[in-house]
């Protein structure tokens, strides 16, 4: 054994203090999601125009989109908590992918329908810019809160944790956005939503070393 390794072991073992084990990832994910659900419900019931939302929710495309974005956010956050631990399979990263496909197909169908029939000339950056700001404004603080929860594990593969966690918070922000969206998604909206989700995921992945300790 080299001298420095020997010294290092002695140093680490000396004065070792009892530590508190991390709670199981499903419990930590449930606590985080529960807090976000509580805050989200408060925001929706306080500020959203539920009449407009209920009228829009009669379209199956919106229901599919809502289900897709919510499930993607929910599952991606759970996956991120599992991925933050060293001995959990990297295959947890696949968990949100089926719902991501559902979300994208729901958005695609909705915007295709609206683009062709109801809203001509939608390729203007008007109200869509509000969507961008909404997703960034909700997604980034949620991302910071999620990273605070995940950094306790000091993930040894931070990139995949950050990407999946970023996808989760961006999906939850997009789900929340639908309660404040006074019209159905158009091609322009979809593009803006996709850009916003990509920005949230990229910023979190870019700042992963700092965010995840």
């Amino acid at each position, binding site marked *: *054994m*080299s001298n*420095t*390794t020997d010294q*290092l*072991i*002695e*140093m*680490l*073992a*000396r*004065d*070792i*203090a*009892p*530590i*508190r*084990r*991390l709670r*199981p990832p499903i419990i930590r994910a449930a606590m985080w999601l529960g807090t976000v659900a509580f805050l989200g419900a408060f925001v929706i019931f306080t500020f959203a125009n539920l009449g407009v939302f209920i009228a829009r929710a009669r379209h199956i495309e919106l229901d599919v989109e809502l289900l897709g974005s919510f499930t993607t956010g929910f599952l991606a956050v759970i996956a991120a908590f599992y991925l933050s*631990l*060293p*001995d959990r399979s990297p295959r947890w990263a696949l968990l949100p992918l089926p719902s991501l496909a559902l979300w994208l197909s729901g958005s695609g169908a909705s915007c295709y329908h609206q683009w062709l029939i109801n809203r001509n000339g939608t390729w203007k950056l008007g109200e869509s810019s509000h969507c961008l700001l909404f997703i960034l404004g909700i997604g980034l603080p949620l991302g910071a809160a999620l990273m605070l929860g995940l950094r306790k*594990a*000091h993930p*040894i*593969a931070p990139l995949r944790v950050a990407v999946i966690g970023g996808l989760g918070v961006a999906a939850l922000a997009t789900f929340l956005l639908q309660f404040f969206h006074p019209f159905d998604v158009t091609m322009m909206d979809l593009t803006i939503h996709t850009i916003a989700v990509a920005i949230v995921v990229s910023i979190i992945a870019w700042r992963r070393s700092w965010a995840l300790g």
Partner: protein
Amino acid sequence: MGLEPDKRWSSEMAAAQSGDAAAYERLLRDILPFLRLIARRERVPSDMVEDIVQDTLLTIHRIRHTYDPRRPFVPWLAVIAKRRSIDAQRRFGRISAWEQAAPDQLETFPDPAANIQIELEDKREWLHRALKDLPRKQREAVELVKIRGFSVSEAATASGRSAGAIKVNIHRALQALRKLFEER
């Protein structure tokens, strides 16, 4: 000691999590051959193996709270060791891509006494620069404990970090300085 390694290591880690220093030291010594084996299997150059092993030990220390004694220990350990080997090789690859062999500088003064003074100045300047280039937490820890003579617990209080973090920072800083010194 008759237990198979996974069960023995698992119970030693559980004891270490409760603050049993002897069990922790025994565990860290026991796993060394396994860590070296993984580093070699990941094709880490032989002169880097011990660095990777030490890096892995530090990582184990930092994330020991993530181990759940209800789960097997070896997969937890193997992933950490493998990851540290891969990270170190990437870092090494990035550094060597930018490195260039410099020709030896053999200029000296004919009077050996003059060289001593110049070398001393060089060393002082080198040390100053090397300390300045260390990450902030490592530099602070070295300055407080090794230069100002604080004890580890005093340095921990002064910097608002744990004693363990101060020790790890000092170890890392000294390792980095040693490496820089050898590369001079």
